């Protein structure tokens, strides 16, 4: 820790020692990882915690972590986590003095803050007026301009209807971004390049905005090409202190949803950082901001920065700022809410090392479809490096045996790694992802691992277009490189040998290993208790470190490289392993068995071209056709709502509808048939 950091901690220790803890009991009006995150700080301060939950969340980790828990309604968040009165009642009945809203849900809802205040309960966040001013994307720009903050060129105005949307878009000039006036994040945000895309974007965005925020107002503004998304974390108290905790770069995004974040940015200079930080503080002070907040900027290639919006809440990616500054942001929020001054001044804040965060989602990274189900295997990584006890932080709200449901955000965790510099933080992240065991659902770690290994990402040359530029056809799943094959083949060969020879004796056995349509003949030799594998004219000595059970196994190759391999399943023929985050089926047969396997016919899959299949589990919110209707290919015929997103299902072909297999309101499985065509 830097000298300034140490000094800050010392100062803070003195202050916390001299004052009583901010609150006796705090209710956390959220679920999942952020509820657990807030509770951790509360616990460390000796504050009692109250969890709220929906009925399906009654066994969730945040409920078990809390000292008390109150059920606030049924599964849909609109009837539970968004039910302000129920949550206020919970706070009153448990005697909570303050409510931390986390992010999402009611975190930026000024009515909620107001309702709490009326009941004599502190809202752990900014004052109502600041939420209101910054929550409105039009008003926030006006205030920002007045406060001397750089703003994006564009048109500010509420969009009444589709025609207005097209007119405004043309005035602003394409490309334009359409988004919800209320709420942040990527929900309800779409980029349109022409009139028809504006129309479609307007419809979908307004529906989603209504579903997520209960407010369907939208905003259209100029979309800046090739921008970087860099945001400033600020902290302000009721004593007029306002500091910035430097920046986070969140340029790696998909459909405006952040995927990988890092702090600091690899791009901006200390001068730009200072200018951005100071403008962020000016904006905060202009609205008498009191709490933690984030001012988002778009930064162009010339390092011009433009104000985007201010998020008046604890941000998802706050841990990376905590890593590099040593500040516990939740602790400061609690202090500010209790009326205490910040425990840091601007001079205490430095940049110590580098932190990277990956958002791990229950989502198929190839088709970008949410995945639900039980986490049959779940172990978080615990990389211990010699040079530092720090290294890995995994903020999650689930454990092995938890379920990911269709009702809420599909985020599994935020995996954060920290190191003295960018390269070491990224390398630790790669290792941490390799060791992160998640099974039972599909998740996006293969994509995360791919991004981390991408040369352009490594060089720091990134923008918010990174993913679409690097993977124009989408991420296709990791093909096995020659280098990876060289690691996977000997490791699986020995693993198989261990699994199928429980009392091994010195011997030499031939196998054929098949993966990704490729077949590699190998010889596994056990001599004097040491395994070696011969394949493709080379021999590798392999030392397994695990037993025959346990998911995470490590194989040392030639006592140099260590291959982490997750063994998920073995059905007697095929090993399902996760290697470098990608799930692979590896078949190990004897040469004779392989010879016969090669003669087996490849079976053709059932023809589904006549069917409209739900691509994901979710609830069927609308069907716009009836049996006998003629539709054109590509027409929207149904909507499946999953993870708060409207997923438009389009006719797979032109033709007449023979049968409708599902009805509105049904909970449909992924792969369930909805319509059948003639």
């Amino acid at each position, binding site marked *: 820790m830097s000298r300034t950091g140490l000094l800050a901690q010392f100062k803070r220790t003195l202050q916390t020692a001299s004052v009583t803890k901010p609150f006796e009991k705090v209710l956390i009006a959220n679920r999942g990882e952020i509820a657990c995150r807030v509770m951790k700080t509360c616990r460390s301060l000796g504050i009692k915690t109250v969890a709220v939950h929906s009925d399906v969340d009654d066994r969730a980790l945040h409920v078990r972590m809390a000292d008390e828990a109150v059920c606030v309604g049924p599964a849909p968040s609109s009837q539970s986590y968004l039910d302000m009165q129920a949550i206020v009642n919970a706070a009153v009945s448990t005697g909570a003095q303050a409510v931390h809203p986390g992010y999402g849900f009611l975190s930026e809802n000024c009515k909620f803050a107001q309702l709490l205040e009326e009941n004599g309960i502190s809202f752990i966040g900014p004052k109502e007026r600041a939420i209101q001013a910054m929550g409105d994307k039009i008003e926030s720009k006006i205030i920002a301009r007045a406060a001397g903050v750089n703003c994006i060129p564009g048109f500010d105005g509420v969009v009444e209807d589709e025609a207005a949307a097209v007119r405004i878009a043309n005035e602003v000039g394409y490309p334009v971004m359409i988004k919800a006036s209320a709420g942040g994040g990527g929900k309800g945000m779409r980029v349109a390049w022409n009139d028809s895309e504006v129309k479609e974007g307007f419809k979908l965005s307004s529906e989603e905005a209504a579903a997520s925020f209960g407010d369907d107002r939208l905003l259209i503004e100029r979309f800046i090409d090739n921008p970087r998304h860099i945001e400033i974390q600020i902290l302000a108290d009721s004593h007029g202190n306002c500091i910035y905790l430097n920046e986070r770069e969140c340029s790696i995004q998909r459909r405006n949803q952040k995927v990988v974040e890092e702090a600091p940015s690899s791009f901006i200079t200390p001068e730009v950082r200072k200018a951005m930080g100071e403008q962020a503080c000016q904006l905060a002070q202009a609205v008498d901001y009191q709490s933690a907040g984030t001012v988002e900027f778009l930064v162009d290639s010339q390092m011009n920065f433009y104000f985007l919006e201010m998020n008046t809440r604890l941000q998802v990616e706050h841990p990376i700022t905590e890593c590099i500054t040593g500040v516990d942001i939740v602790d400061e929020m609690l202090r500010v809410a209790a009326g205490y001054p910040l425990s840091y001044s601007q001079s205490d804040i430095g940049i110590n090392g580098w932190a990277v965060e990956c958002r791990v989602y229950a989502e198929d990274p190839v088709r970008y479809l949410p995945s639900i189900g039980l986490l049959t295997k779940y172990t978080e990584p615990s990389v211990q490096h010699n040079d530092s006890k720090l290294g890995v932080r995994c903020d999650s709200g689930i454990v*092995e*045996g938890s379920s990911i449901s269709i009702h809420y955000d599909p985020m599994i965790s935020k995996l954060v790694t920290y190191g003295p510099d960018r390269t070491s933080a990224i390398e630790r992240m790669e290792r941490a992802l390799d060791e992160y065991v998640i099974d039972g659902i599909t998740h996006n770690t293969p994509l995360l691992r791919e991004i981390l290994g991408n040369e352009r990402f490594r060089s720091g040359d990134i923008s918010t277009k990174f993913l679409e530029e690097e993977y124009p056809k989408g991420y296709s799943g990791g093909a096995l490189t020659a280098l990876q094959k060289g690691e996977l083949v000997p490791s699986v060969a020995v693993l198989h040998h261990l699994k199928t020879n429980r009392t091994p004796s010195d011997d030499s056995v031939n196998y054929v290993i098949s993966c990704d349509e490729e077949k590699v003949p190998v010889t596994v030799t056990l001599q004097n208790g040491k395994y070696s594998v011969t394949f493709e004219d080379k021999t590798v000595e392999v030392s397994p470190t695990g037993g025959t*059970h346990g998911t995470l196994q490590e194989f040392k190759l030639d006592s140099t490289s260590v291959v982490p391999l997750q063994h998920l399943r073995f059905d*007697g*023929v095929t090993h399902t392993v996760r290697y470098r985050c990608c799930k692979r089926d590896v078949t190990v*047969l004897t040469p004779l068995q392989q010879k*016969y396997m090669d*003669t*087996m016919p490849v079976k053709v899959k059932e023809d589904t071209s006549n069917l409209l299949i739900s691509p994901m589990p979710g609830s069927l919110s609308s069907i716009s056709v009836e049996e006998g209707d003629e539709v054109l290919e590509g027409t929207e015929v149904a909507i499946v709502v999953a993870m708060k997103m409207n997923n438009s299902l389009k006719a797979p072909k032109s033709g007449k509808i023979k049968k409708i297999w599902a009805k509105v309101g049904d909970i449909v499985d992924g792969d369930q048939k909805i319509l059948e065509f003639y």
Partner: protein
Amino acid sequence: MALSRFYIPCHALVKLAPQTRTAVTSVVLERLEQKKKEALLGGGQHRIDAQHKKGKLTARERIEVLLDEGSFVEWDQLVEHDCIDWGMDKTHFAGDGVVTGTGTVNGRQVFLFSQDFTVFGGSLSAAYASKICKIMDHAEMVGAPLLGLNDSGGARIQEGVASLGGYGDIFLRNVLLSGVVPQISLIMGPCAGGAVYSPAITDFTFMVKGTSHMFITGPDVVKQVTNETVTQEELGGSAAHCSTSGCAAGACENDVHLLLQTRRLLDFLPSNNQEKSPVRPCSDPAEREIPALDNIVPNSPISPYDIKHIVEFLVDEGDFFEIMPDYAKNIVVGFARMNGETVGIVGNQPLVAAGCLDINASVKGARFVRFCDSFNIPLIILEDVPGFLPGTQQEHGGIIKHGAKLLYALAEATVPKLTVITRKAYGGAYVVMNSKHIRADVNYAWPSSEIAVMGSKGAVAIICRGDPDLAKREEEYIDTFANPFPTAKKGFVDDVIMPRDTRKRLCADLKWLRNKSQKNPWKKHGNIPL
């Protein structure tokens, strides 16, 4: 495969005078070589090609995949039929359409026959049947499993009743071997007519998707008799038998997959009824705690969960060999290991029909339990059962007698029997599912268990009829019974355990139960309600 591996009956030659031996020997050897060469080719290369074209391996190739390499010893390779009718005297094939013998699977002896569709369409002659009977007799004598690879058009019609007699000889032996050595049938082509009764009697029948069929009468006869048009696949394909009729225990994608899965299954089983299953060295700790289980049962009694997740958490390395995965899915049965020792798992599946017991589930469960009891395989029952399925269809279908099968099977079983009540244990189904009352050794309840005569609504409607505040009474009922205490108080469960400790407790119990010895009263055999 090297010729020298085959059994050469040359002792007869030694008796000849020394001077003639050489000449005779060379002639005999030449003939022998010729015959063996022919035998290896079955019905000839073009028929082998036709077999391959269908995506099927030949009888001999199947044996190569199924057995440890080089372990096969063939018997009766030179057997030929003795039929002279219908021109059969002109056509002979060495081995006569079936390959029989013995070999090892992961070092353990098995006996097998593999029907050769390339020879007379695999049709069964009297000679063919005696070959099969010979290995069956030896399987019984030495106590080794019997594997039947079926790929046959049926009886050899030219032989008439001699062929039928052959079937009878096999069926009889199947019956006599039942419960003595494990018998497994692999259906790898057609298996039609009377022939189906051999697989039907064996312990497990597996099929190959798309290329195997079983039926008493084929589509042509069905059309003639009932005027019903049906394809072979619809009538007797793997889907029909694995999910509708319950005649097959499972199906695989192709021949190689099926043969390799059979090897895997054999690893779980003892060789005969006098032995215990082989113990597999295991590094999965018997003491392993499973925190995930503490929260796996939903709080709401009407929310489902997948019992297979619990099984996979509990058993060694999550390795579970499910039997009949697509039939009567409201009950899950299969083999697994606990601390290296094979166990039979029977679990109600709350995910399907709330895990209730119906006719199919009862029969599926009963047959599996009886297999385990026959072969000294301890049973673990995971119970979450709301009761027997009500309704006319079930009652008229005979749920009384079929449900009784499961009761009978569990009550008569003398292997170690362990029960874990994960949630519901209601009514008669509570008694049936390996309760203390039918000699279970250890019964545990999880804290989430509710054990009662019936659900709260129905119970209150009867015992509090006319009560003005039924809702209140129902609450009281739930308070009294929707927990494990009344049962624990009576000693009907031995302990209420934390789910996370389940593996630890079961492994410890199985250890002390290893030498369990329990005898049923002498009887010729019981009279299970069929």
